[in-house]
């Protein structure tokens, strides 16, 4: 286990570093400086600003400062939301995005694994075919299509749930966004679970278990499920990444004040520090999540423990 974790950390740290370095360099290289407004500033003011923000220092020193600030959690000031630093915005938006993502992942796992189990226990029958077709449809439906449709049906037409807004995070406001975010991932997990079970059930050790007169339920749950979940565990890393990107859309569609929405606004308004800060933060989150996914993978398959 430990060697696996160490190996993962070895890959993770350079990745993070590379992302930060890349972001920093891109920011420096991009056409147009951070202070290009509608009117060009006179040279004296430009020079003064440059000195104030440390922009006249050699590149590696600037990077060093950037790193130091990052380590303290300081991503710099937002260029668009002038009264806030990026850190402030992150502190506001991140909890919302994380809540959304976590709930969606849990929902997706519950729906996906159950659907996969039910489909695998009646292979080839109508239930199986129907569930897998539904799962394929779900993976092909982008959340920016399902989101508005859900709003159309449940918000506008039926009026059961609020159309948009966060409303201080009370459950009715969470229902539609979480569902819209979870559906594609649930579909993928259902298919992976079903495929994993199909492979697992074809293995020799299942024949041994059946030969010992164990009931089909016991065979499925005790002997087949764990190896079957291995592909699902491998998928958790990419699933997290997908949820992060999906959250961006969902927050835009449902007007939720999460980090994703700030990111999009920042992107459209060329707010470099905000965009960079979010990218770095998300990269860190994904690295963390991949680590957790690897731990789960190791628990499922003892051979990986080395």
């Amino acid at each position: 286990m430990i060697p696996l974790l160490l190996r993962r950390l070895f890959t993770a740290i350079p990745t993070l570093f590379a992302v930060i370095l890349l972001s920093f360099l891109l920011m420096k290289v991009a056409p147009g400086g951070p202070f290009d407004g509608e009117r060009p500033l006179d040279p004296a003011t430009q020079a003064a600003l440059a000195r104030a923000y440390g922009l006249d220092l050699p590149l590696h020193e600037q990077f060093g400062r950037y790193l130091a600030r990052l380590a303290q959690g300081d991503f710099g000031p937002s260029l668009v939301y002038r009264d806030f630093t990026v850190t402030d915005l992150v502190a506001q938006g991140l909890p919302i995005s994380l809540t959304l993502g976590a709930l969606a992942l849990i929902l997706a796992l519950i729906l996906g694994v159950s659907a996969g189990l039910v489909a695998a226990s009646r292979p080839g029958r109508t239930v199986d075919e129907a569930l897998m077709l539904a799962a394929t449809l779900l993976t092909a439906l982008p959340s920016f299509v399902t989101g508005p449709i859900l709003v159309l049906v449940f918000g506008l037409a039926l009026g059961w749930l609020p159309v948009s807004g966060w409303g201080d995070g009370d459950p009715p406001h969470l229902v539609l966004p979480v569902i819209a975010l979870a559906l594609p991932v649930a579909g993928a997990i259902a298919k992976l679970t079903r495929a994993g079970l199909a492979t697992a059930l074809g293995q020799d050790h299942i024949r041994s278990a059946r030969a010992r007169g164990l009931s089909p339920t016991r065979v499925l749950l005790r002997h087949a499920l764990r190896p079957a979940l291995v592909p699902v565990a491998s998928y958790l890393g990419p699933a997290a990444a997908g949820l992060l990107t999906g959250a961006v859309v969902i927050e835009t569609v449902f007007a939720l004040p999460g980090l994703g929405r700030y990111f999009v606004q920042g992107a459209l308004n060329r707010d470099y520090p905000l965009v960079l800060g979010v990218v770095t933060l998300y990269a860190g989150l994904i690295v963390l999540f991949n680590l957790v996914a690897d731990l789960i993978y190791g628990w499922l398959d003892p051979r990986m423990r080395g």
Partner: protein
Amino acid sequence: MKPALLILAAIVLAALFVPPLLPWSHDAIDWDAIRAAPLVPGHPLGTDGVGRDLLARSLVGARVTLAVAAAAALVALAIGVLWGAVAGWCGGRIDEAMMRVVDALYALPFMFVVILLMVLFGRSILLVFLGIGAVEWLTMARVVRAEVMRLKQRPFVLAAEAAGAGPARIVGAHILPNLAGVAIAYLLLTVPQVVMVESFLSFLGLGVQEPLTSLGILVKEGADEMDLAPHTLLLPGGLLVAILVSLTIAGERLRDRFAA
């Protein structure tokens, strides 16, 4: 698989050949029919919030979406096959290094990096192609590498070496032809991913620019109008979903056939 391929073919043909035949082009405004429901004369699918024919826009949008998808998928295929084949064939340290790079890149929130690049360097269609292709080559590289390593172990490769074939000949005549099936299957699975990425970017306003339109943009416009004219969301959305579903089903059937 056949129904999926037929639907796909129908959409592609319609997107390529039907728009010039329609009475209204995709950017012409019909002041008399704003937010018109479907089946109004001259507009089989109705019009959007500004009065543009929805059928024409949907088909032209599909054209752009598919073109971007095909180009980006081919970029992903080229990079992925090259990377994966070299890593798989060389093995040892080179393989480890190359796959570490893939692992590291896998962890990146690539979407965001692409958006970052677009923010910094402006939005060009070229950047869209390259950016999206760059996101998707990783899976192809992993799959190709695994397949090359599997093939390398098989005795027929050793027998070819005993028969006097050099490494270039073995890779060219034995390994690459046996890769073709898997590569095509994953290519077909990559295209829907690319379509989704492109649509996603367009939806956010970061992708394809006017005067071009794509299905992503159409869905965004439809979402804005959905309380007044739901068909502007549902019809382009439906077309997008049809493309994605048929590509996914076709790709999966092919992949399963080669997995055996």
